[in-house]
């Protein structure tokens, strides 16, 4: 059990590190970069997403919106 937690922690650390390591190239993005990033993002969502989704429905959408009100547009 302890070993499993250790392996899981290492995996998460590696995944997050690789995300940060690849933050810089966004400024000089290659064609197709979004596809690479979003497949990693899909994995991150799947691992952390449910923990973030503490509320449900409209309440959660509002929480995301208020956090992201200065964010990008949808298109």
């Amino acid at each position: 059990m302890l070993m499993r937690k250790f392996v899981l922690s290492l995996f998460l650390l590696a995944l997050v590190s690789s995300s940060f390591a690849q933050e810089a190239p966004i400024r000089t993005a290659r064609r197709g970069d979004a596809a690479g990033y979003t497949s990693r993002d899909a994995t991150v969502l799947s691992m952390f997403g449910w923990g973030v989704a503490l509320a449900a429905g409209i309440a959660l959408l509002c929480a995301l919106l208020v956090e992201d009100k200065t964010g990008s547009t949808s298109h």
Partner: protein
Amino acid sequence: MKSILFLFPLFCWAAPICIFQPPPEWQPSQPKTLSEYVQIGFVTKGSTDFCPSINLATEAVDCSLKEYIKAVKEIHLSQSGTRWRDLGSIEMKAGQGRLTEITTTSPWGEVLMLQAILVKDKTAYLLTAATLKKDFVSRQKEILTSLGSLQFTDDLWSMVSDASVRMELASFYQSLGTGDQPDTQWKELQALVSKHGSALGGYWQFLALKEGYVKIYKNGKP
């Protein structure tokens, strides 16, 4: 009449809104560690701690879908432990896109991702769904339906099928930002979107709330 003609170019330049329907009951989620390409993500409870997810991303491009897919292939195949396959065309409401499959590993087992890609007006639109491979069969139908739901609309209200509801929403949105009780309007907006938006999906609701929020709190939330 002159004022209408003056506004005409604005309507011509307004970019269409890209929208999709996540599977019903999936909850929105947006961890801060996601890349700037991701517009929104949705998750649902899985058989393990690894939840099925879907996210919408966009990227400015200067190439065709064929050239974009070629670049995507190179990127995925350069990552060790990742397998990539082109599954062919996918019919989306917005037009014909390309469906690809990415397989990778995780502590919970093999992860299977489906990525639907559409290139339109110098923008690549990507819907990426991830599940554990062992959960895929039970999720396949709702994921493929969601991937195919990607579409463009000039305004959010035209997607509301009931004409009276459409008019009610349009009229309510016109009134936003004019009163002196923004918090009351914000609550009314949430109730209205919750009442009429469930059939249009979580992303439509998010965009409808966002548009209203900006109008209500145009001078910033106190």
